């Protein structure tokens, strides 16, 4: 997927101005950035929700799936039905049921399948949203802080689920998160957004194959990435926008990519 010369404003607040980014197909791209920088806005643009932009967004015509920053469940439907909602007319009834039961089992909600959203805890609701996003086998998967509200162990389990899913069908994933660990564990490529309008303050490829990221031999390299990211995020928060911009320009001139 590619965005070229994108310009978009919320009311009079320009979020993107002549912004370009390349999101490689069949890879996981993680996006970090300050709160309110424009990450969700980018996902919505990719999902074609905001349609008043200028510029070109290519490659988003396929089967999309979106995990919103809020669960966005139908309050009048049970957990099962909420997941079923996005599958209707897509599979035979028995196939559908099997898939739903499967995914609910994987996110640990099989016992709650007949509960209504208001009877769930926050983390449970988030997991229903995850189940719904994962159940459709999308070509493009847009994730907005998918693991928020989950305990650490479940965070890991569900990230593993995501990676397995990616392993099977290799969808293009755009993964917005605030957690550097998450990004390092899942991203082929990591961006840090900054500024208003948005510019890419930092971009890096993580060269270790995803399945090997737990191996000890790669930890040194990953630690380096982590340190870099931490540093950049600190900078991003320091309000020295111009310094950063200059630096970024310098870097892009030098073609120096970690």
């Amino acid at each position: 997927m590619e965005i070229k010369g994108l310009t978009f404003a919320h009311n009079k607040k320009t979020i993107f101005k002549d912004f370009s980014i390349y999101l490689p197909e069949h890879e996981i791209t993680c996006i970090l950035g300050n709160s309110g920088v424009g990450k969700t806005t980018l996902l919505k643009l990719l999902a074609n929700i905001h349609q008043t932009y200028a510029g070109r967004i290519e490659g988003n015509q396929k089967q999309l799936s979106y995990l919103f920053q809020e669960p966005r469940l139908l309050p009048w439907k049970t957990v099962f039905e909420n997941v079923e909602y996005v599958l209707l007319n897509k599979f035979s009834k028995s196939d559908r049921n099997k898939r739903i039961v499967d995914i609910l089992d994987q996110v640990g909600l099989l016992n709650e399948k007949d509960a209504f959203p208001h009877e769930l805890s926050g983390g449970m609701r988030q997991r229903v949203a995850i189940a719904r996003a994962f159940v459709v086998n999308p070509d493009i998967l847009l994730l907005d802080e998918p693991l928020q509200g989950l305990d650490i162990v479940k965070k890991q389990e569900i990230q593993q689920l995501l990676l397995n899913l990616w392993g099977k069908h290799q969808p293009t994933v755009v993964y917005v998160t605030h957690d550097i660990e998450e990004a390092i564990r899942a991203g082929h490529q990591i961006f840090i957004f900054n500024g208003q309008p948005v510019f890419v303050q930092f971009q890096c490829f993580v060269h270790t194959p995803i399945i090997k990221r737990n191996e000890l031999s790669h930890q040194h390299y990953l630690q380096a990435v982590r340190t870099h990211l931490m540093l950049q995020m600190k900078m991003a928060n320091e309000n020295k926008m111009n310094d950063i911009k200059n630096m970024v320009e310098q870097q892009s001139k030098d073609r120096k990519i970690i």
Partner: protein
Amino acid sequence: MKGSIFQNDKWLTVAAIVFIVCVWWIASSFYPPIILPSPADTLKKFYELLIAGKLVNELLITIQRVLLAFTISFLIGAILGSLVGKTKNLYLFVKPIITIIQTVPPISWIILAIIWMGLGGGAPIFVVIIATFPIFFFNASEGIKQVSEDLLEMSTIFQVKPQRVLLDVYVPSLWPFISSAITICIGISWKTIVMAELLSSNNGVGAALGLARLQLETAEVLAWTLSIVILGVTCEHIFQYVSDKTRVGKVSKSWKLKG
């Protein structure tokens, strides 16, 4: 069957009716029967009309008309309201037209209604439609604005078919508005049909009531009124029952009516 309809609210409805009857009884003791007959007098007259077969005859005519009018009105009002409510400019154009239609008193419509539809029953049906469809329209068009954009976006992204979105997002969100409009319109329909029949028709409960009134048969007037009220309350309960049975009503109840 009746038992099951009244099951849940049975006692409260009975209590409400007992309450009304008591108030009526007490009030009737202050006035001569020609002004306000007692419930007993009214029931007696009611029974007489029933035995004579007149009650059922006229009621059937009136029921048919109300059902037809209500259905048309619901369809036009709710659908038009939902469609128009979303588009601001269209809404601003249609709204004054409907306000005008609604503000014109039936008495001003009646001649045209009779000419267009004859003395048979067309005119009352027309008047009931005119009286109720704006209610569906305004409630639906206000309701459609309250449908969560978030859920609609979600549905679009997941490529949910429009008819599912209608059924699973629009209908449940509109439900409180539609349900309130239905409750209101049930009451209004019965009341209006009586006025309309009285003004424009030779048969039906309204015409019978009008005649009774001219002949100072106040007990009969109230007997006809009673039959209309019974119909109204019964309809209300049937609606409540059906609505509770359907998913939307059930959930929106368990979901909100916690108190």
